[in-house]
């Protein structure tokens, strides 16, 4: 059962520019384990959508199957949601996006959902540059089916039952970079300060935006020896930079003289400001991001933050050159070819 919180909230609580209170971005009460990293990510999504002034009904939230995929129930209760089948959220999101390019698409998935059964769909969504934000709540294990290793579990990581993972991990970030994703980031469920602006920037990005969020499973993968535990992640995490998302509406007058900060402007005029980025890394340059990622990996570090961004990508609708009107708004008038055309067709078969 999903239990819903009373919708009443204090009338004096602040409203955002589109007239919603933060409570309007919440969902049903979570049924995940207390302390599950996924709940913190839901919290960051709520915060980001509130701050982004998103009208909840203009966002569609989609997911596959797994504990992580359950989270769309726990945020934005006024948005249409879709729990599809295991691993196949990207195709449903693709279809939904094709039908109406004017909504915001947020896909949530697990590492099992994405890196195993859904790997094919994940890489093809990237390849098509589907305009969506794709968040993987990565705990290195299958939570919902009680703790088996997932394909993102690190080599040598120790599971709760004490067994050592014998296989190489699939790094979803590396894959996304390799495949040409226009927005690639990694974060940690426990780092809201970093995650919230990342989600905001991802949603403003005009194509496929991927965020891999390390999200410890407190029940099955938070033990000593696990490389996706809270403790391990906190210890080995290094941020690429401190980042800030500046929405378009705010006229940017602030000075950013500081040599070590970079501004990345998005298509809609919003900006991402990165202060003190790591040396030898340019977020615009895929090669440099790749290098940075491999470098960190060899040192056993987990780099978090924005890893790569190309603000001028062509999303799927640009590639297909579809009409400005959403396809689901077209009527008989635009969709049915004329009777004369049909007569010509008949004639061509005589």
């Amino acid at each position, binding site marked *: *059962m*999903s239990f*819903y919180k009373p919708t009443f909230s204090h009338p004096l609580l602040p409203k955002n520019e589109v007239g919603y209170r933060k409570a309007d971005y919440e969902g049903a009460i979570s049924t995940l384990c207390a302390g599950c990293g996924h709940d913190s990510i839901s919290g960051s999504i709520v915060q980001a959508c509130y701050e982004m002034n998103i*009208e*909840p*009904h*203009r966002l*569609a939230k*989609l997911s596959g199957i797994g504990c992580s995929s359950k989270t*769309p*129930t726990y945020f934005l*209760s*006024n*948005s*249409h*949601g*879709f*729990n*599809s*089948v295991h691993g*196949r959220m*990207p*195709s*449903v*999101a*693709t*279809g*939904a*996006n*094709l*039908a*109406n390019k*004017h*909504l915001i698409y947020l896909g949530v998935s697990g590492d099992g959902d994405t890196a195993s059964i859904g790997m*094919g*769909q994940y890489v*093809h969504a990237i390849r*098509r540059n589907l305009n969506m934000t794709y968040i993987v709540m990565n705990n290195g294990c299958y939570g919902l089916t009680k703790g088996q290793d997932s394909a993102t579990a690190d080599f040598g990581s120790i599971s709760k039952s004490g067994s050592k993972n014998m296989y190489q991990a699939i790094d979803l970030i590396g894959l996304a970079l390799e495949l040409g994703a226009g927005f690639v980031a990694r974060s940690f469920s426990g780092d809201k300060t970093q995650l919230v602006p990342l989600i905001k920037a991802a949603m403003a990005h005009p194509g496929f935006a991927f965020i891999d969020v390390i999200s410890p499973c407190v029940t099955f993968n938070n033990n000593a020896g696990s490389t996706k535990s809270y403790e391990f992640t906190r210890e080995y995490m290094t941020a690429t930079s401190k980042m800030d998302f500046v929405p378009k509406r705010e006229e940017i007058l602030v000075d950013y003289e500081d040599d070590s900060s970079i501004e990345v402007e998005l298509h809609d005029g919003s900006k991402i400001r990165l202060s003190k980025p790591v040396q030898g890394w340019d977020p615009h340059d895929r090669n440099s991001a790749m290098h940075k990622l491999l470098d960190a990996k060899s040192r056993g570090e987990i780099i978090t933050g924005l890893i790569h961004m190309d603000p001028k990508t062509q999303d799927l*609708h640009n590639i*297909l*050159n*579809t*009409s*400005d*009107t959403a*396809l*689901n708004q*077209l009527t*008989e008038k*635009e*969709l*049915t*070819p004329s*009777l004369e*055309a*049909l007569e010509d*067709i*008949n004639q061509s*078969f*005589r």
Partner: protein
Amino acid sequence: MPLGSGVNDFVVRFANVNGTGSASANGIFAKALFRMGLPISPKNIFPSNIQGLPTWYEVRVNENAYLGRREGIDILVAVNPQSLKQDIASVKSGGYLVYDNSKKLHDSFLREDINFIGIPMMQMCMEHYSNPRQQQLFKNVVYVGALAALLDIEMEVIKGIISDQFARKPKLVPPNFEALDMGAKYAREHFDCPLDIRVERRDKIGDSIMLDGNTATALGLLYGGASVAAWYPITPSTSVAKAFEDYAKKLRVDPETGKKNVAIVQAEDELAAIGMVIGACWNGARAFTATSGAGVSLMNEFIGLAYFAEIPVTLVNVQRGGPSTGMPTRTQQADIISSAYASHGDTKHVLLFPSTPAECFEFGAKALDLADRLQTPVILMSDLDIGMNEHVSPPLKWEEGKKYDRGKVLSAQDLEEVKEFGRYLDVDGDGIPYRTYPGTHPTKGSFFTRGTSRDEYARYTEQGDAYVRNVDRLSRKFETAKSMVPSPQFYGKKNQSSYGMLFFGTTTYAALEAMDLLQGEGIGVDSMRLRAFPFNNEVEDFIHQHTYVFVVEQNRDAQMRSVLIQELGIRPEKMLSVLNYDGMPITADKIFKTVRHNLTELNPKMDAS
């Protein structure tokens, strides 16, 4: 079967090498007969291979419009040395073999009882054309020219077709004409033209057109308003997507902006294809996918989601020979059970069975309407025979100003008037709930779509009673579907006999001819063509009104018969099967013989032989 009467009643078969450009020449031959006012049915018999292997093209001409496949070849045009032995053996006694005698035929190939018509096609082309590709290509046109003389086909008609075909490349017209004339001239000089087997102009086709079912299906989907298509290549369904794309390029482009009112995606596999269709339909577009048996197997999990979550989905299943990769380029109707009950748990899906290209067109659009109206998957059950072969068909028709049936969708205004929106409430008692598209209203009408159990307000629940209410409503909805799907068609007078014959899809052509053959022997059988699942009352009545019902179908296990027995609670003994599953379309002769044999066993006095 006796030899055809000779005039306007025969079968010609062409034996070619896959990939040598013969398809176009064979097509010109068929079209010429069609333009001479004759009903014809061409069939491609091709291997699952791209180049080099033997491939056949068969054309049946029959002025009485019997257009099922007929066994026995009257004229064989043999230009493939690889299959020559087999080709010669396949000609009926008294028939003709037209072959390339550029090289002398070995004596061991000769047959006393057939006529050999040797034409040095390759040699003529070698002498006439310098370019090797042309030498090969025009060999095909040479035999078309020879056939024109041998069968008395009007040369002007053939030339007209060639001119139409090369309207954009007029340079190619004269060399084609030369090849035609060369072939005709040689035939006239060396043989008595025309043969006893020949054609005469008639006016038997009215305003008919000739096209393949896949093109017609694609056009139906286009006219019916599909704006999203997602598919993955598989024979024999690929040309549905291909034709949809080709026509969409012309007919779905905004002339001012050049932007498209359609999105077509070649998916990474069938799972993704159906997933995209589900996403698009959930979000209020009309979408479809086209596939064949193996693809439907892969789509199963998603089809179950669409059924349970009540999302309109249109799927075209162009059936081929199964199981597994089976006979990918041969025809069957063997996915009936796997489509009707696709996916795990209790599921049932609406199936439509077209039997002419005109009906493929009509049902293509109808499938979109039904899917929207019923909020459920609708599967258009085509097959390789109708999908990939050309058929003479009534012209495609569209009603001026026809509106799509978008079903029960609440707009923002509607939502204002609704007190509490319940996505899965049976407001009207027909089992069909109301839905909303994402983004419709700021505070009302949003809901969660899931494959897990939920209550009437789309809230997740594992309560048994809520689950039962939900699945019972889905049954009610399927009942409602009975009155919306196309009803069966009857031929001739109803209820004249205590025997009935039931058929559907492409077996129709042969079944109708078989009825006449039976009639010729004084055996009256009533006939009904099924057009959809669920079966409506007329189907049930027909079966109840007859002591025995023959079910004609193209699969080993009598799948339609099983579904009828299961769904309508019929005594199995009264349902008799006429089956064909060798991958070739069933023939009238086979139906005739099976029915006659059965009737003789049922009623020894009826022995007509």
